[in-house]
């Protein structure tokens, strides 16, 4: 396994209330595997992903759990040691391609500096690697692009540059936080295909954070669904999305417009996501769940559903 996360819990202490944002999350990613971490806003998916790179704000505290990257425990590392890993062993790409690159530095500078920060090479070699990184993400005329400033590139090109910068030192793990959400559908598909191909070819593990199940469906090998700070369903993408076991996953799928009958009304989920300060006892979805029963007040654990799947529900929609 490239990445192994065990019992990760995060909270955000406040003057009045403490938010228990991520609760006991465990998962692992194999080399070359593309994993989608899916959930709505406030589900804890972004906090979980950024915690892996130690990039959360100082207010977010880790209360427990372990994060191992290629066998090395990251939670013990100093900021200095983590910095040596960021951009080298693990990379992060963010959502907004318009704001991710520094407007006053050239593309070449921002790519080269990423190499020079981690590798003992000269400027010439760093520049050569920058050219091949741009080639790898499918940017035409890479030599010319090196001299360009971000504002001279389109949004899609900028996100390619950001991904090139993330992949330039051949990391073992790529974390993307809604990295294609701001792009139109065609560009999104191109970039997802590119990342998937790169991941499979180089053995890069990919953790793709998104609120969009359709992205996960076409792109990921495996899906992790988060709700209210907990993992509620995991498993191979095709099986989870064809036959969801958790009522929440099923409800999310029913709300995807392209899957609905033309002309029919879109299914919507009644109610609000749970308040996590503190989280309600029992199953966190039961207030909105169409099949909730009295037993759900006890709170199910995430348990195995066959060999490859897990679900946090007493009454899963599919049985092993």
């Amino acid at each position, binding site marked *: 396994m490239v990445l192994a996360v065990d019992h990760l819990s995060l909270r955000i202490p406040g003057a009045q209330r403490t938010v228990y944002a991520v609760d006991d999350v465990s998962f692992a990613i194999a080399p070359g595997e593309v994993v989608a971490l899916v959930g709505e806003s406030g589900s804890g998916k972004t906090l979980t992903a950024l915690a892996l790179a130690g*990039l959360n704000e100082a207010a977010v505290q880790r209360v427990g759990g372990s994060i191992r990257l290629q066998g090395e425990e990251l939670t013990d590392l100093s900021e200095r040691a983590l910095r040596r890993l*960021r951009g080298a062993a693990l*990379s992060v790409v*963010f959502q907004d391609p318009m704001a991710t690159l520094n407007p*006053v530095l050239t593309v070449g500078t921002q790519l080269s*500096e*990423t190499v020079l*920060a981690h590798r003992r090479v000269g400027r010439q070699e760093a520049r050569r690697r920058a050219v091949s990184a741009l080639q790898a993400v499918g940017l035409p005329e890479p030599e010319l692009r090196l001299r360009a*400033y971000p504002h001279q590139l389109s949004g899609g090109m900028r996100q390619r540059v950001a991904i090139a910068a993330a992949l330039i030192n051949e990391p073992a793990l790529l974390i993307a936080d809604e990295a294609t959400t701001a792009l139109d559908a065609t560009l999104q598909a191109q970039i997802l295909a590119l990342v998937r191909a790169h991941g499979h070819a180089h053995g890069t593990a990919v953790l793709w954070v998104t609120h969009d199940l359709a992205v996960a469906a076409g792109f990921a090998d495996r899906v992790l669904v988060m709700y209210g700070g907990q993992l509620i369903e995991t498993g191979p993408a095709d099986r989870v999305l064809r036959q969801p076991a958790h009522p929440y996953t099923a409800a999310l799928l029913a709300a995807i417009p392209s899957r609905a009958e033309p002309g029919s009304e879109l299914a919507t989920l009644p109610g609000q996501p749970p308040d996590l300060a503190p989280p309600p006892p029992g199953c966190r979805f039961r207030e909105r769940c169409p099949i909730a029963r009295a037993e759900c007040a006890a709170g199910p654990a995430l348990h195995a559903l066959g060999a490859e799947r897990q679900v946090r529900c007493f009454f899963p929609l599919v049985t092993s």
Partner: protein
Amino acid sequence: MIALVLRRLLQSALVLLVMSLLVFVAVYAIGDPIALLVDPQADQHDVARVRASLGLDAPWWAQYGYFLVAAGRGDLGQSFIHGEPAIRLVLERMPATLELASAALLIALFAGVPLGLWAGLRPNSISARLVNGLSLLGFSLPTFWVGMMLIMLFAVGLGWLPTGGRGPTEPVFGVPLSITGIAGWRHLLLPAATLALFKWSLLLRLTAGATREAMRQDYVRFARARGLSPARIVGVHVLKNILIPIVTVSGLEFGSLIAFAVVTETVFAWPGMGKLLIDSIAVLDRPVVVAYLLITVALFVAINLVVDLLYALLDPRVRFGSTA
């Protein structure tokens, strides 16, 4: 880039022209100089003759035309008091004022920007709040009072520095400067520090604010995610962005330093343009006032031009135009 320079040069020429019209109308067309120049006993005939001999019988736009033509030759009239060309009087004093204003700007920059950067990087610390409070003092204390207090403390009380005046000058490329010797610096220090105080506060707050803002930007987050060192993130990614407002404001404020110098020069008896202006206003030496105003406007315009060019140099979005 060349088109930008040409466009700005043309704009500068227009601004100068408009300003010369305003100054001319304000100073020459209000009130009748004949009343001051001619003996009150003189008859209508004598008055008309003097008026004609001075060209004051022509309509105001024709007078403005003569004024422009003369100004184009570098002639802004004779000082009533000194009997010398007004422009020469002002230009003689200009190096002293520029020396003072430049020293003040350098003090403000070198003390304000690093401190602002430092405070902006740790916005919630007690020391940053202390620095911010101190800069508030710099904003609110009146220049003349600060100048007098500094004189009291360092010149009168401790006797370390002279109370006023300018040190001996030496020509540097034909321009008399006092900063070539120790005595010059001793004279310059107090007035320059007084003049710098307000700009120091301004630049400190501007830098701190811009730094706080920049540190929250996505490009800083992405730079951290790529494992760049804090030195590189602050020294390159943040600094290159915040230099844009700092250079703009410094340039514009350099103009106002020259204007503010009027008060400081008076307090420290600094023989610059500002002191000349105050003296000339006191004795109604109008050609000198006009010459001062026009030269100051020309300086402002030149400074703005330099700021625009520097801005384009620092910000690629200005240099290449936005294509996004």
